[in-house]
Structure formats: C-alpha cells, structure tokens
C-alpha cells in the first residue's frame, strides 16, 4: 500500500518545487505570475475534486436517493463557488469602469 502511495508523494513534492521555482521567475515577467497563479488554482481544484470524490463515494456506498442531502451538499458548495466567481466578475467590471 505504501509502495503505491510513494510515487504520488514524490509527484506532490515535485509540483511544490516546480511552483516555488516558477514563483521565483514570476517577479521578472507578469505573464509568468499569471501562469503560476493559474497553476495554483489547478492544484486547489484537484484537492477539492479529491475531497468531493470521497464524499460522493461514501454516499454511493451508503445508497443514494434523489432527495438525499449528501448529494445536494456538493452541488450547493459548487453553486456558492459560481456565485463567488460572479461577484468577482462584477467587482472587476466596476473597477474597469472607475479607471
């Protein structure tokens, strides 16, 4: 079991090191900074998906019904993230109009 997990640990260390390296160059070129931030977003997303997958797997193992709140919870969390993205969009458009 540990042998199976080892490569993913190295992969995580590799990703962290790559991010640190990229961040060092980010101060040189703003476009690199954007790429680094996007990479961070992707990593955060992967963590969220892994957590969600485990919640869904548990719900599935216990038996799902259509009204089951365990299935509605991830959807509500995603809805909140969409709303947050829209709020950020509105804020940025307002900032654009001010400048």
């Amino acid at each position, binding site marked *: 079991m540990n042998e199976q997990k080892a490569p993913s640990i190295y992969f995580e260390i590799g990703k962290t090191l790559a991010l640190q390296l990229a961040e060092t160059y980010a101060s040189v070129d703003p476009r690199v900074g954007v790429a680094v931030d996007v990479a961070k977003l992707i990593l955060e*997303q992967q963590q969220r998906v892994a957590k969600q997958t485990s919640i869904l797997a548990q719900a599935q193992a216990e038996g799902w019904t259509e009204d089951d709140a365990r299935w509605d919870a991830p959807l509500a969390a995603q809805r909140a993230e969409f709303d947050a993205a829209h709020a950020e969009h509105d804020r940025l458009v307002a900032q654009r109009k001010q400048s």
Partner: protein
Amino acid sequence: MKKLLLGFLVLGFLAGGAGGCAEQTVTPAANSNVQKVYAANNNLILAENALNLLYKKELERRTTDPKGKVLLTDSAYDTAYTLQLEAEKILTQAMAVARGPRGDGSDGMSAQNLLDQAQKKVDQINKVAGVPPK
C-alpha cells in the same frame, strides 16, 4: 404480545425491503451522469476563477505598466463571461436530466450531449484564460 412483536418484525422487514427497492431505482449509469456533471461544474469553476484572475492582473497592469503587453482585452473578458453563463445554464439542465424522473440512465445520451455542449464552452473559456488543456 408475541403476535404484536411478530407484526412489528414483518412491518420492519417490509419497510426495509421497500427501502432497498427505492435505492435500486438509481442505476450506476444515473450516478455516473450526476458525477460527470459535478466534474464539469468543477472544470467550469476553475475556468471562471482563472479568467477572473487573468483580468485582475490585466487591470493591475493597466495602472502599473500601461505600455506593457496586454494580457486580456475587455471584449475577450466579456465574451468569455457570456460563455460562462451559457455553460452554467447547460450544466443545470444536464443535472436536471441526470437526476430527474428519467435519470435512470435511459436518457444518458441527453445528459452526455448537454455535457459535451458545456465542455466546448469551458474549453473556449480556458483558451482565453490560459488554462492548459488536460
């Protein structure tokens, strides 16, 4: 007293059986469709956040480095935002299909078609936002 206990046992058995049947109405195919919608939602959230991030950097650049390279134009941002709203609407439909009365897998193609439509829009947003393809 024994008859009463036996009655409760029979009722409990029947209720348990009915519960088991209710769970079986959702097939693995329907569960799979729901999970696909969750995954598509996650991809869309990532694209939206990346797009906002890029535009935030662009607005910062306009004040700090007005003559620098344009990261994202206003029109590209606005167009991508329209795509976001369309993709969200499509995914809401896809979830309704996947979880609706016919969410037993028999309409799997419909849900898949909606997911494909949404994915095309997500791909377009990602292209603008600079998110690398998987």
